[in-house]
C-alpha cells in the first residue's frame, strides 16, 4: 500500500500543478450549479434528486471521468516514465491502483465542494438528509466505476485522446444498454442488459435505498477494470 499511496500522491500533485484539476472541476461544478439554480428556481423543492438524477449530470460525469483519467497511464507510456517506475520495486497493480486512487480522491474533493448545494437546501427548506446522503453515495459509486474504466482505457494506448474517446464510448455504451434491455423485458438477454446498465443501479440510491446488490455492482466494475488494466500493463511487456 505504501507504493500505492506514493504514486497517488504524486499524481495528485500533477493534477494540481497542471490546469486539469481546476478546469475539470470548474466545468463540472459549473454545470452542476446551473442545474441546481434551474431546478431550485423552477421546481421549488428542497431535494437533490433533479440534479443528481438528471441525464445531464450523467453525461457530464462520463466526460469528466474520461478527461480526468485519460493521461494517467497513457502519458507515462508516451513519455517513457513508466520504465522508471516499473524498474523501481513497484508492482504493476500498485501503479494502476495508485493512479486510480488519485483520480478518485480528486473526484471526492469535487463532490465535497459541491456539498454547498445540499447545505443551501437545508437552509431554505427541510430536505430528507438521508436520501441526499444516499444519492451522494450512489453518485460517488457511479463516478468510481467510470474513473476505473477511464484508468483501464488509459492503459490501452499512449495517446490520451484515444483513451478519453474509448472511455466515453464505454461509459455511454453502459448507459445505453439498459434502454436496449428495456425493449425486451422478461427475457434473459433483456434482464441481463438492464442489469449491466450503469445507471439502472443508481436510482435506488436517489430514492434513499442503499441496496447491497447495487453497491456490489459498482465495486465489481471497479475491481474488474483495475484487474484488466493491470493485465494490460503486464501484457505490454510481452509484445
Amino acid at each position, binding site marked *: 500500500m505504501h*507504493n500505492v499511496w*506514493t504514486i497517488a500522491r504524486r499524481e495528485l500533485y*500533477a493534477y494540481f*500543478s497542471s490546469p486539469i484539476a481546476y478546469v475539470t472541476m470548474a466545468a463540472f461544478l459549473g454545470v452542476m450549479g446551473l442545474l441546481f439554480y434551474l431546478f431550485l428556481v423552477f421546481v421549488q423543492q428542497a431535494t437533490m434528486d433533479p440534479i443528481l438524477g438528471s441525464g445531464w449530470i450523467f453525461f457530464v460525469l462520463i466526460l469528466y471521468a474520461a478527461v480526468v483519467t485519460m493521461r494517467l497511464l497513457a502519458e507515462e507510456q508516451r513519455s*517513457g516514465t513508466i*520504465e*522508471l517506475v516499473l*524498474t523501481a*520495486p513497484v508492482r504493476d497493480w500498485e501503479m494502476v491502483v495508485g493512479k486510480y486512487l488519485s483520480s478518485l480522491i480528486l473526484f471526492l474533493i469535487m463532490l465535497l465542494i459541491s456539498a454547498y448545494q445540499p447545505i443551501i437546501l437545508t437552509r431554505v427548506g427541510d430536505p430528507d438528509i438521508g436520501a441526499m446522503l444516499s444519492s451522494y453515495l450512489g453518485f460517488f459509486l457511479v463516478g468510481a466505476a467510470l474513473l476505473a474504466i477511464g484508468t483501464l482505457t488509459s492503459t490501452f494506448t499512449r495517446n490520451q485522446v484515444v483513451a478519453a474517446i474509448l472511455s466515453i464510448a464505454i461509459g455511454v455504451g453502459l448507459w445505453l444498454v439498459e434502454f436496449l434491455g428495456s425493449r425486451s423485458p422478461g427475457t434473459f438477454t433483456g434482464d441481463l442488459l438492464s442489469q449491466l446498465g450503469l445507471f439502472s443501479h443508481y436510482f435506488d440510491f436517489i430514492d434513499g435505498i442503499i441496496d447491497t446488490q447495487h453497491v456490489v455492482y459498482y465495486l465489481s466494475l471497479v475491481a474488474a477494470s483495475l484487474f484488466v488494466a493491470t493485465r494490460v500493463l503486464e501484457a505490454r*511487456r510481452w509484445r
Partner: protein
Amino acid sequence: MIEAENLTRYYGPTRAVHDISFHVDKGEVVGFLGPNGAGKTTTMRMLTGFLPPSDGTARVADFDVFHDSLEVRRRVGYMPETVPLYPEMTVWAYLDYMAALRRLPDRKVAVERVLQACGIGDRADSMIAKLSKGYRQRVGLAQAILHEPEVLILDEPTIGLDPRQVTDVRALIQEIGREHTVILSSHVLPEVSQTCNRVLIINKGEIVAEGTPDELTSQLQGAERALVRIADAGPEAAGVLERVEGVIGVEATADGAFQISYAQGHDRRAELARAVVEQGWGLLELCNVGMSLEDIFLQLTTEEVDPKGFPKPLESGKGEQDA
C-alpha cells in the same frame, strides 16, 4: 554479479536479441558497444526486469530477473536512454518521489547526497521542464544512484551532451564504478575504451566480441599495419610498396602517408624500408600502427568487409545501421 545465459528477445516476429550470454563480476565497469538498433537497450531492459526475456535467463545479484523481479529491481539502478522524467515536477520533488518508491528510510539525506554527487544541488528547486539536456541527464543519473544500487545500468549515458558535460558524466561514472558494478552502453568508442574495464561488442542482437579494450585489439588483429611516410613520393609509390613481399594492402592516408598492412607476425618493416631506399626516396617515417578499437568495431559491425579483412575507411553514418 550478473549472469546472462542465452538471452533472447523477440518483438513480435522481429528478433532484437539472440542468444546472448555473458557475465559481469562485482566492481566491473562493462560497456555494451554496438551500432544503433543492435539490441543494447533491449538487453539492458531485460537485466532490469522491465522486459521479460523470450528465452534464456539472467541473474542479477543471484536473483532471477523474471522470477525475482522485485529483488532485482531493488538492487539495480537504471537510467534509460531517453531519460524520461516528469516535466511538471521540481528536481527535488522528483528525486523524493523516486526515493519514496524505493522506500529509502531517510529520503532527505539520500536526495541531498545524489544532488551533490551529480552536481545539481543548485537546481534542486527548478522545474524539470526548464532544465537543459545536460542537467536532465544528471537528474536521470541521480535517480539511478539514489538507493546506492549494487548494479548500475546506464543506457547511452552521455548521448546528446556537450563535450564538457560528457567529461563530467564520464568522471562521475568512473567514480561510481569504483564501488559499484556498472553496465553502460554506447556507440561512441572512446567512451567505452576510457571508462570500461571490459567491452562487449553487440551487433544485430549478438555478441560479436568480448574483452578488455587491449585484449580486443590484440585478439582481433588478423593483421598488422605500418605507417610509411616518404619524401617526394611519386605517383608510383603505392605500386612499389604493394610489390614488397608479404604486403597485402596499401592505402594512402589523407595527409600523404601510406598505411601498409601485412599478416600478423610477419613484420615487413625492414623490407619496406629497403624498398623505399632502393628507389632513392627519402624515408621520413616508418612505424607500426595497431588496430584501433574503432577499426575493430567497424570491422565487426559493418556488413561489407573488404575481402582482405580490412574495414572500409570511415564514412559518415557507417556505424549507424538500423535493426
